[in-house]
Structure formats: C-alpha cells, structure tokens
C-alpha cells in the first residue's frame, strides 16, 4: 500500500503511522455532553466502503494526513494535510 503524501509524494505504507477514523478531528468542546465524548472517542461508522481516516507521516515529514480511501478495495481516493498547507 502506498500513500501520496502531499509534501513527500508517493511513499510506502511503512513510513506512516495509522491513528483511526477522521472523527478524531471533531473534538467536542469542554462543555459537550458525555454522549458526545463517547461518540467522539469510541463509536464509529466503520463503513465497508469509502472512509476517511488519519495517518501520520512518521518516517517522513511529520504531517498528519486525512486519507480518503476505500476499506474494501484499498483504493486511495485523496490524501490531504490535516493542517492544510500542502505544497
């Protein structure tokens, strides 16, 4: 599996660390209900199909990436920098 890092170009999967669903980007505010935190931390759509998840280019540029890909075919549809600023 290869991801095209927006900074570094196409790289082997072994350069990346996987975190989880892109849900982790939507951190509830400090006053959010307990159920919002439960959803944020634990519950997942977990689709058999297109999903978005978070990868860290650990053995590379150290960018956090949001990857749009298919969990059935492993097709990579898009790779975006979480913080933007991709070259």
């Amino acid at each position, binding site marked *: *599996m*290869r991801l095209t890092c927006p900074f570094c170009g*196409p790289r*082997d*999967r072994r350069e990346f*660390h996987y*975190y989880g669903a892109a849900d*982790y*980007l939507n*951190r*509830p*505010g*400090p006053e*959010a209900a*307990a159920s919002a*935190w439960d959803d944020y*931390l634990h519950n997942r759509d977990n689709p058999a199909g297109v999903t978005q998840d*978070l990868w*860290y280019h*650990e053995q590379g540029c*150290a*960018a*956090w990436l949001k990857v749009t890909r298919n969990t059935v*075919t*492993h*097709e*990579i549809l898009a790779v975006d*920098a*979480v*913080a*933007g600023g991709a070259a």
Partner: protein
Amino acid sequence: MRIDSKGRIDRSRPLTFVFDGTSYAGFKGDTLASALMANNVRVVGRSFKYHRPRGILTAGSEEPNALVEVLGPSNQTPNTRATMQELFEGLVARSQNRWPSLGLDLLEVNDLAAPFLSAGFYYKTFMWPRRLWEGLYEPLIRRAAGLGRLSGKHDEGTYEKAWAHCDLLVIGAGPAGLMAALTAARAGVDVILCDESSEPGGRLLSDEGAIDGLPAADWVAGVLAEMASLPNLRLMTRTTVTGAYDDGTFGALERVGLHRRPRPNLPRECFWRIVAKRSILAAGALERAIAFENNDRPGVMMASALSTYLNRYGVVPGKRIALFANTDSARNTARSLMAAGVEVAAIIDPREDAAEEPGTTVHRGAVVARARGRMGLREITIRKGASETRLSVDCLGVSGGWNPTLHLTCHMNGRPRWSADLAAFVPNDGAIPGMLVAGAANGSFSTHGCLAAGAEAARASLAALGMAAPMAALPQAEDAPYAIAPLWQVPTKKRAWLDFANDVTTKDVALSAQEGFTSVEHMKRYTTQGMAPDQGKNSNVAALAVLADATGRGIPETGTTTFRPPFAPVSIAAMGAGGRGAGFAPQRFLTSDRASRDRHAPMIEAGLWYRPSYFPKPGETTWRESCDREVMMVRSSVGVTDVSTLGKIDIQGPDAGRFLDFVYTNTFSTLPVGRVRYGLMLREDGHVLDDGTCARLGETHWLMTTTTAAAGLVMRHLDFVHQAFCADWQVRFTSVTEGWAQFAVAGPRARDLITSALGRAPGLPFMGCSDVTVQGIAGRLFRISFSGEEGYEIAVPTRYGEALFRDLIARAETMGGGPYGMEALNVLRIEKGFITHAEIHGRTTACDIGMEKMVSAKKDCIGKAAAARPGMTGPEREQLVGLKPLTDSPITAGAHLFAQGAELTRENSAGYVTSVGYSPLLKSHLALAFLKNGRARHGETIRLVDRLRDIDVLCSVTGPVFHDPEGEKLRA
C-alpha cells in the same frame, strides 16, 4: 536417459552431485530433477499421507512430488523442489519423509490402511480416552505427518531484501512476456522483466517451434541480445513474483546463490519489493493431470514436462513412452520424442475425432484406466468403451489441458471466471489495478497468440503511462486453435489422485460431498486438497470439477478457485532478511556507553537504548551489593547517571504556554522564566499518557522532558494536537533528544560536584534552570531530582557527552561518589515514591496515582472530559500506595494483595505490586502497589502473595513516599 544432441545443458562442464548418499554425474545447466532422470533414478520422494513412492511429475516450481532436503555445509533446506534446484558441483541432496530409506519406508503401511484413513477420519476418532490425545494419538500423528526436516540449528545463511521501481513490471519471460517487455522497453519506459527460471524463454525453450522461421530458442537469443542493449530494461532471472499487493507493489523472490556453492556475503535469496506503475502478467499456463487409478506411480508425469526435459535438458525418463491427452499440445511432445528417437508406444486420446499421428498408434475415444508399477511404471491399461487392453510402457505423459497461471490476479480478492471453451478459469480484467494479463495466462495458448497479446498489453500499458507505442510487425509463429474435451477423472473404484502432494483422491472429494461438505471451501478444508506445498496448482481445478460431478452441479455453480500469496513458497529468512540477531531493531547508544563498559557495567535494554545496570566494584559479587552501595552513595555523597535517553522536546513560540496548558493537565503558562515544573499528560481517553518536567528557558521558549519509553509517542501526540486542533497557534516543537547529553547529579554533595565542574556555584533554587558554560562549552543546568536528594541535571551538546561523563565521575569519586546505574536509580525513585511506566501502565488515571488535584479545574485539557467518567474515579479503583513487609522478606513485583484471612481468589484480589526494591537506607524491601481504595487504607496490614514464586508476606500499607516525605532534602 540422456539424448545426445538435445538440450541446453553444457556437456563440456560435467558436475558431480550426491543424492541419498550415492554420487552421480550431471552437467552444468541441469536441474537436480533432470540429472536424476539422466541417471535413471525413478523414485525421488514419498507421499505425504500414504508414503507411496513418487517420481518427478513436472519441470517447474509447481512440483508436488520431487521434494528433497538440500544439505549445505552447516545447514539443510527441506522441501526443495528438485525441479527448481540447479545442479552445481558438490550438490548434496537427500530424500525426505521416509524411514528408514526411500526404497523401504515402513510408513507405507498407511497405504494398506487407506480405507480407514479417508478424508477427515481424524475428526471422528481419537477422542477417547481424552488424555491419550496429547499423550499418544497426537504425537504419532505429528511424527507421521510433515515433510522435510529443519535442522533445528540457527540459519546462518546470508539473505537480503531490496527495492526496485519501474514503470512497467512484466512477469514471465515466455513469448508474451518477452514481446511485452521488448515493445515497452523500445518505447523508452523503465521495464523490469522477471522470470522464475534460470533462463528466459518459457515454453519457447521447451517446445520445438519456429518464430520468424528460426528455431524459437534462437529467436529468444536475439530478443535477449537486444534487451541487453536497452539500459531501461532490467531482466531479473531466477526471480519469482510471489505476491501482488496494493498500489503496484509486488513481492518477488530472487534465488541469488542457491545454484552455486556458498560464497561470503553472497545472499542465498533476495526478497524484492517491486513498485510498478503498471504490470503485465505473462506467467503462462500450467498443464493439469487427469485422475485415474494409480496415476501417481513414478513414471507418470506431465506431457509438457517430457518436452521440457527433452528439449532443455536432453533427457527422457523412459524408453517406451505413452501419452494420455485430451488436447493437441501433447502431440508436440510425441513428435519431439519420436524425432529424438524415443519410442512412443501409443497416444490415448479421449476425443472420438482425434487425429491420427504418424509414427505411433492413436487410441481415439479411449482413456487410461490404471497404471501399474509401484516403484516405477511398468504398464498401463487402456480402456475404450467396455474393453480394456494392457500396454507395457515405462513412462506416461499426461495432459488434461491447461490452466492459465492467473494466481497473482487472485491476490487482491479477484475471482477468476470459468471459460467453457477452454475448460479452465481465466482472470477477470481489473483484478489487480494496473495489471493486464497476456498470453497463456489469459487463455491464449498459441505462440502467435502469446506474441500478439504481449505486444498489445505493452501498447495498452504504454498508453496508460502516457506513451505512444509504434506498431511493429509481429514475428510469425504458429497459431493453432486450442481444442479440448474436458476430462477430469477416469471412473474407478480404487484411488485416483487429484492432489499428489497431500494424497487427496477423487474418493476423498466424493466422500466430502457425501458428508455434506459441498461448498468448495468446505471440501478443501475437509480433504486438505490444495493445502500442500504446490498450493493446489496441480489440483484445484480438477478437484472442483470432481466435486461438481459428485454434487450434480456445473463447475461455475460449484464455486471458483482462488489463490493467496505467495505464488510460490518463500523462505522466512528471505522475507525476514535483516531481522537476524541485533538487526531486528536499531541500537541506540549513549555517549557514556564506552565509559560505562570500561567500568564493566552490564548494559541492559531500555527501549532501543542500552543503559548501565550497575557499576561493579572489585569484591562485589552480586548486583545487589553494587546496587546497595550506589544507593547509599547517592544518599550520602553524590552519584552521576546518564539520563540522555529521556525525550527532550524544544517548544518555541508566542503560543507555547497556551499550548502546554492544553496538553498538560496542570497550568504552565504562569511558570516564570528560569523555572521548571512537573507536568502530567493524559490521553484523550482520560488515562495517563506520560509525565515529566517542562522548563521555561525564555519568554517563548520551553523544553519538555518525556519518559524514555514515551518520547516518540509524545512527539506524535503534540504534532496531532497542534495540526488537528490549533494549527494557527504560533508554536512549533522540535525533538532535541539526540542533540544533548544529559547527566543527573544527585546527593548531598551534588552542589559541590556541580560547583567543581562549572567552576562556580550553581545558584539555582529547587526547580530552577539556567544556561551555563561547562568548561568552555555552552550547556544547560536544571535543578530537578528523581532520587529525593538535592539533584541537578547538566546537559551539553552530544559530542561532549563522553568527556563530561568521565569528568563528572572522576570529580564525584574524589568526593566519595561515583556513577550509578538503573538498578540504583530504580531503588532511589521507589524510596521517594516516584512513578514510572510500571505504574503509569496505560490503565492508570490521575486519581489512581493521587494526582487528581493536578487536573486544573480552570481550563480544558486533553483527556479532561473522559477522565470524568464515573468508572474512572472512586474507591473501587486501585490507588497507588507504598508497602513495607512486616518481616525481612523479599517481595516481588507482580504479586497480588489480599486482606488477611481472605481466600486467594480472583474475587478477593485487592490489588497488585508494580515495583519493588531493597532500600539499604531503610534496611527493608519496599514496594509500590495499587490497592483498592488504597489511600484510605494507610496503616492497614495486607497480605502480599506471589504464587508463581511462593512468596506470602504481610506488609503494612503506607503512603508511596518512604524517604523524606516533606521534600526537605530537595529544597535544601
């Protein structure tokens, strides 16, 4: 038997080799199989289950029978395909799965007991009495099963892994692959052409055909010559593409040194990861067998293999050969044999309309009903209608048609489809993104068809790469249509083999259907068909067809066949190259490493680092003696230890304080410049991630310290929090762990030592920090302590680390101090109740370790919300306490805690011990432990029980801080 004038072997280079203790002669260019055949060795192996004598069936990596152990100078390689093992001078091989010898194998008794060993028999018996399973039945089964032997010795061979990148990967260098690679390379793209064999050409080397009027092998030579002139084409022979993975990544195994005597540093095998923008699978096709009674006798083999042995190796396995085939391809074999002067006694062709063949008798509409000859074929029975005739032969070539070598197209869950015309599975387009399948692998079986398909696949690949390919004239070659009348089995009441390697017969498949295992997956799993070293290459399709027959369904309704990586088995050593010994993970060395080793300190692993365990002095015979001395040294004078392994993250920017407030539970933005604060970091799920100190070096400049274990984790965490939640904050962080050598100096005389080393008094309050000049070098000084004594950490650029360490311990020794290691460091921190990852092990909350007050109520921070869940706090949870045994008894980490008098059950376990050490200061063993509601139980007596090590000790529960609980020494 050799045929003069035939073959591609080098008769000028004779070689000797040994098989089963007997020395034989062969030639350069032989395989072990061809050389054994030339020496008229007919039985080369024993079958898996029935231990039947077996001969060579094929000429390729799919060989199910001729598996041998190859013996090297220091080790042996089991299950080596004699058909793939190239001969070299001094090769030594041995047959396997037989006892005592290949000729006399006592386990052949299984063959007589076959009626009781039908498919899945073991699921129905050996159940009583239960204890005899592990004691008797299973050991017997295990000993009888298996094939070759590993030596049990470490594999000291040399292996490597490598990467290769290209625009186009062509898999297989037969007519389709050569044509594809040549077409693409001429257009200028980077091409890698892999072929499993030692010599490119594929079937063009095995069959006597013509291309452009030249013998096919000459055409191949011409193509190779042109390829050699193209720098953008890389030909990799002896290289099997073993797996297709995502995004154009392929695994491939190159046999680098297996065909020659070992040489220093020359790898035996190389496992390649090939990354290709496009690929063409041109792996050809595999001939398949027909099941009939005793079709596994030595001398029964694939018709196409006969051609290969004759034309590539100049050898035939018999004097009087018959062919049994339902396609025309075996006719080429017959003609080659006859042209070479070998008697072809008959061709048995089940097709009623089969053509005559000059020079031999064709039995049309007939089948071979059985073979005879336990140690080598003597006779076949030809059945036509109700009549049977016997024919004396010593070899039978069989062809049941061809299966495209589409295995790689299944590796990404692609399923092939059934072609009724070819009576074979063919690959579906797009099964592997970017891959086209060409030639026989796609069901084009004529030479012309292969050449045309190879060229076309190259053009399509070039177009996908954005390149135009000029049309070139195709070489002229035969274009015979493929005609087949499917025939999978000849009915028999006896056994007819489908899977030679696992001894699966048509009866087993029928029994599987009879018992309701009618799904093809059930059948395979029940009979073990397809699970042997040939991975079902020889039997999957036929077994499916036989199952379809048995269940009265068509083949497409019965199911499909699939293959998983690897295409051909790959050694663990090749895919694990580099992992041997210390190669498994990088080693990280401290600048003080040499100085510590000079002092005979045993070095222990701390993550990837090596740290000194203790520094033995003359006369000390145990680690405890050294440890006790080092602890007392720190408590009474001064000790020095290397703490450079701790993570150091430099944090700069106007928003740094705000950022630290967000990632730490406590507040940092209010810390004055020149001061250090202890901080606690949570995971977002509310458990403790890490702890450490953070120093404010300047108004917008901070230095965070992490534990050794969590350094990488924390860096990743900070990057995530910043990039995901506050990317616009003016703050950046950079790891500076590697840039600084940092030493802890601790003890009542620590200040004296620092004063001596700096040439001035440190002048720092507890938890203060400043820039310093250390003997002319710019460094940093922190007044922090992990021991409970007055402590400093002094840091200099890494290049000066060794010098500073040696300098500090030399100065310390003049004060009655010296270096101390991890053991003493651990005792010191236990005495002081400081935690490590033994306590913050991932299930610990701030509350559990008594730090709930460090979670600021005034601000949000990572983990705060989740830490408020009801299950995360409360007296039912285990809380950090100290334990002191009531008697002078050793105690152990990992012991559990029980109320006195409570039965030792899971339900009664009230906690467990995380860290222990012997305190020479308090002259007692001490422990840190987690105890349910522990903070309310100080003063209680609790029972510590380690049933693994027979320890049962009463302890008093205390606070976790044993030494100087008020911290007076720290602040002195």
